[in-house]
């Protein structure tokens, strides 16, 4: 291999930065000129200008600009264009300060002090101060809060301004990952209005100023000339359009009506990729699909039955058929490859009808017949996946009766009600967050109704543990416990698959959420 070829392979490797590339290129003996040319090609420098039109499959007339009600991609992207958080998950998954300049933490991870960045201005000209931060966080707390972030922020016992440029937060119990919670899209910082916040106007500190907001149709933005970050927010104008129908979205992209779209139809992704001027971008994050058993309901209260069901599914086939390979195999715990403490040492659970039979026999439940509730509201392809699973399980002597539930009211009437059902999880950026959202004994979304003493002890201990190595050990043990005892069957992690015009330039794409961690509007540019 010539140096040039070698460098090209190097540049195309995932996770390498421009700086890292230059260092290694020079070490390999390349001239600075050559290295720079190659680097420019691989890490195209952002350019300013243009009107970025983004077509998203979500968005409805009933949407509101109140971040407490955000629950789907459309508002998440719109919110992230207009507002910032105290902390941010960067493009490579690290937590970095955004509106905060940094933070101090006590040894028990209970008391936190966040220093605010100075001189940041809201779109209406007001300067950001600690009152805005306090009001924005309090917006989700209190008895009358209907915010989805309420339970996340329950741990806060005291929150107050410390002068104009700092905020102190006291927690009920130590939590080493607390700053991650402040990066959650719900907890965006908005201008205070007395004790409340002004969310109605859409004013924030973000890279784009909200111009026109038509819920369920489109939202337009202009660039914020005073944006505090340098090197972000390259487009002059941004337009986010709701295009619910995937065929309409694809047509709009192929005919140049939009520059990017989310949720490419996986069945036709390979055809779209072949089309000139279109590229497919994919990130594998924490989004996963589950079949969830209620461990407080027979027969799922017997771990052998649960294990039998876990061995009775052919994950490879489901990944190939339902996701067309755009995903990763699940190992019956919710921690994805992109998480920091993913237990890579755990053996992958495979399809094994004999083992399933063995566990059934042990449970004394041979000839088991169960209902599995599914609807496409749970995840796209859930019903098909359930039917495939039925075929796989039949070989292990388990008779699964697939119950097709209505999409309408699925989360109200089926999820956490029916003993065995299909569920979708967007995933969470940290292990603690994921586990305490849906696996700890007292979590309100503990949809498996699972209570495991050792697991809950470890959860508390790991949360306050500041020693990286000890923490990793604990989280790995917890993943093993969920895998071998929990009520959840996780066949697969689904990639976020997006379609882009090849005029769009971007750096490494964040994998924590779709659309570059919701931040495509400030991170992408027209090349």
């Amino acid at each position, binding site marked *: 291999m010539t140096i040039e070829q070698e460098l090209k392979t190097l540049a195309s490797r995932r996770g390498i930065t421009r700086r890292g590339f230059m260092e290694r290129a020079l070490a390999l003996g390349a001239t600075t000129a050559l290295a720079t040319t190659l680097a420019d090609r691989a890490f195209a420098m952002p350019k300013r200008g243009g009107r970025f039109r983004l077509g998203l499959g979500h968005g409805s007339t009933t949407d509101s600009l109140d971040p407490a009600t955000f629950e789907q991609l459309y508002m998440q992207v719109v919110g992230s264009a207009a507002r910032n958080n105290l902390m941010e998950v960067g493009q490579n998954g690290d937590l970095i300060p955004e509106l905060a300049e940094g933070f101090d933490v006590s040894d028990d991870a209970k008391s936190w002090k966040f220093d605010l960045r100075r001189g940041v201005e809201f779109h209406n000209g007001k300067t950001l101060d600690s009152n805005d931060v306090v009001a924005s966080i309090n917006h989700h707390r209190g008895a009358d809060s209907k915010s989805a972030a309420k339970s996340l922020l329950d741990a806060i016992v005291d929150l107050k301004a410390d002068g104009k440029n700092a905020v102190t937060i006291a927690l009920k119990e130590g939590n080493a990952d607390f700053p991650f919670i402040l990066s959650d899209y719900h907890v965006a910082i908005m201008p205070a209005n007395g004790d409340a916040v002004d969310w109605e106007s859409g004013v924030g500190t973000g890279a784009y100023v909200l111009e026109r907001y038509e819920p369920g*149709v489109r939202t337009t933005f202009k660039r914020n000339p005073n944006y505090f970050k340098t090197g972000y927010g390259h487009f002059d104008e941004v337009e986010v359009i709701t295009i619910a129908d995937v065929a*309409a979205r694809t047509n709009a992209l192929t005919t140049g009506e939009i520059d990017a779209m989310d949720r490419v139809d996986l069945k036709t992704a390979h055809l779209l990729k072949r089309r000139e001027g279109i590229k497919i971008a994919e990130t594998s994050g924490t989004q996963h699909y589950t079949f969830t058993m209620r461990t407080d309901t027979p027969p799922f209260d017997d771990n052998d039955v649960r294990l039998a069901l876990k061995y009775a599914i052919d994950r490879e086939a489901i990944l190939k058929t339902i996701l067309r390979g755009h995903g990763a195999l699940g190992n019956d715990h919710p921690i994805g490859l992109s998480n920091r403490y993913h237990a890579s040492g755990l053996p992958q659970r495979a399809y094994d009808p004999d083992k399933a039979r063995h566990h059934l026999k042990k449970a004394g439940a041979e000839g088991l017949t169960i209902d599995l509730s599914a609807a496409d509201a749970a995840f796209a392809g859930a019903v098909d996946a359930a039917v495939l699973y039925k075929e796989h399980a039949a070989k292990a002597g388990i008779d699964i009766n697939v119950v097709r539930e209505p999409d309408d009211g699925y989360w109200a009437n089926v999820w956490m009600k029916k003993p065995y059902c299909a569920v979708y999880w967007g995933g969470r950026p940290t292990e603690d967050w994921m586990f305490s959202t849906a696996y700890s004994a007292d979590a*309100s979304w503990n949809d498996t109704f699972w209570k495991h003493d050792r697991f809950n002890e470890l959860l508390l201990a790991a949360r306050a543990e500041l020693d990286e190595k000890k923490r990793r050990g604990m989280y790995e043990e917890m993943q093993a416990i969920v895998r071998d005892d929990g009520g959840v069957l996780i066949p697969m992690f689904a990639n976020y698959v997006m379609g882009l015009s090849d005029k769009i330039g971007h750096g490494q794409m964040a994998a924590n959420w779709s659309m570059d961690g919701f931040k495509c509007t400030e991170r992408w540019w027209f090349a």
Partner: protein
Amino acid sequence: MTQILTMVAQRLALGLLTLFVVSLIIFLGVELLPGDLTQAILGQAATEETVAAFRRELKLDLPPHERYVAWLGGILQGDLGHSLANKRAITELMGVRLWNTLFLAFISAAVAVPLALGLGILAALYRGTPYDRAVNIVTLSSISFPEFFVAYILILVLAVQLGWFPSISNIGEELGFWERVYRSILPALTLTLVVVAHMMRMTRAAIINLMASPYIEMANLKGLPRVRIIVRHALPNALAPIINVVVINLAYLVVGVVIVEVVFVYPGLGQLLIDAVRTRDIPVVQATGLFFAAAYILLNLTADVLSILTNPRLLHPR
């Protein structure tokens, strides 16, 4: 003339009663759907606590009849109320979309009605010729295909392959009239293809029906040209059924275009109604439902009045 005015007044009063019944049916229907707005909006995020707080805030914890009466009271005072989901005034939510829907209906009708009448008259004139057959086959096929299929074929040919028109109707208030027309052409064309057949067939049938009448025979014997016979003698007498069909199709253009709106991402009322039903946003469902019902009632009334004006015999039913 007074007879007509009395009839209009009677029909309007009946219309109000119909609207009341419609609102009751819509309300009960939405109440019967599983789940409510709070659960629909919070989705997976619905915990008992947040749902309860949300319901208190929206007064959804009150019993249904109280909520209905409160809503009715508002309507009687001319207040359509606010969307439960995002607190925006319904007049504001509906305003732009209502205008968009009427705009699309208007340009579709502007093309479809003259086209259908013209084709129908010509078909009657050249009855039994290859032209008649061809028109029948083409229009009947286009009405037989589902709307979304016609829409996708048009997109494939006119937007993707030829690139003449945009595949989605991304329209907003800031656009000029012709730009709006340009961006709405594909949905308008789809609707035209769907409604032309009905109107054209009715025109043709109504005229042919009259062609056997003695007075047409007379005109024939006088030696009048066929075109003149049809346009001057047959058409005025055939207008009543034609007007009825045209108006039914106009009503359809206003209230029945949801699928076309979805395919072309056209921001009209249908999409608003679907969103509102999905989230159980009762005031919005009520308001759009009432508008659709009112559109039907008024258009039907117009049809009857016009029919009577063209054929006064209808005032004296036997």
